[in-house]
């Protein structure tokens, strides 16, 4: 499902493509799913869960917030870069797959933004807007969306410093975010 949607787009995908790619019978497909939409939702949930688990597994909870976020973003970007079909599915096509897919996407995004929100502490006694993490995530996913539409999934790791800046700047401001961006660029990822 993910490979087909990643290649053809959600709208153009039909169940026949999916069963051909998965080498299963139509009967088997319908034992598991009501149809294309149902199968897509399950595939998306599985993928989002996998990426989230990978990020969580690599997270060093003792490390400072900025390092944790950098490591997490690196994991996500590397994962998307090696699997352009997955990247298109979770970033672009999920928005095309109807209201309940978008709700799943929102829930998945919220799991990541919870991690981001630990960065509020760095703002000291200043109150950051409640929804700052959504704006941080929006800036990151916008950049990724543009790269994917341009067919440059494999180049995403080169954009890591930019993505990092986008993610950190709402919390830290430009100086501190740029310093982190230069540090990661110098480390050569």
């Amino acid at each position, binding site marked *: 499902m993910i490979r087909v949607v990643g290649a053809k787009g959600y709208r153009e995908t039909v169940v026949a493509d999916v069963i051909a790619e998965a080498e299963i019978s139509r009967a088997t497909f319908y034992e598991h799913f009501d149809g294309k939409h149902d199968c897509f939702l399950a595939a998306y949930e599985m993928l989002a869960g996998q990426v989230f688990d990978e990020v969580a597994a690599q997270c060093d909870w003792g490390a400072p917030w900025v390092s944790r976020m950098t490591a997490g973003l690196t994991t996500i970007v590397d994962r998307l870069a090696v699997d352009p079909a997955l990247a298109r599915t979770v970033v672009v096509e999920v*928005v095309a797959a109807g209201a309940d897919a978008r709700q799943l996407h929102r829930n998945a995004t919220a799991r990541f933004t919870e991690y981001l929100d630990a960065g509020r502490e760095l703002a000291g006694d200043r109150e950051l807007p409640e929804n700052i993490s*959504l704006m941080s995530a929006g800036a990151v996913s*916008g950049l990724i969306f543009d790269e994917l*539409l341009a067919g440059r999934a494999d180049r995403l790791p080169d954009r890591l410093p930019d993505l990092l800046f986008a993610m950190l700047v709402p919390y830290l401001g430009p100086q501190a975010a740029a310093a982190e961006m230069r540090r990661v660029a110098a480390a050569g990822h």
Partner: protein
Amino acid sequence: MPRGRQEERWRLPRGRHGLPPEVVSRSQRERLLAATMRIVAAKGYAATRVTDLTEEAGISRTTFYELFADKEACFLAAYDNAVDGLVRRISAAYEAERRWPDRIRAGLATLLEALAEDPAQARLGLVDVAAAGPAAQRRFRAAVQRLMPFFDEGRDFAPGGRNLPANASRMAAGAVVGLISDELVAGRAEELPSLLSDLLFATLIGYLGPDAAAREVGEEASKQLRT
């Protein structure tokens, strides 16, 4: 969806009116583009048929196919047209102010008001557009990028702004669209104007840093209290 009175006003008189053909054609095109945004917003892109569009616009099928090759071409033109109108409104509000942070505040306020005025079209423009295929997805990202020049001026205003990453404005535009889309998906289009302070802070901080961004937002809040 009933036709608005406004549309009736720019509908041409029926029968012989002696108007030049290019005027007739332009009026039909504009009517069709507006009708397309309304219908696709209400029915969804996949469920919309060319017949729905010609009926809503009050034009013939022949006229439709003189203007556009198919539904997709018509939708893309309608989308671009709607984005043009929105960007013009934002520009006018932005240009009316002098200091860059005030300009951004005015532009964001106009964007939020415009989207809140028509929740169905706002959802279509920022969220459901992705369901209309790869060409529409590219038009959506191009629309987001049209917000970038407004933010780019922040490089001149902010101390050290010249040293910001090349993509700073793309990120600011992405942050704005990210939060607005989330509100739209949650069905809270009418409440968009209440996000102004948050969006202002989150975009200004990227250029001015946390202290100055908080000051600008604080001034905005006290301005609102005064009015």
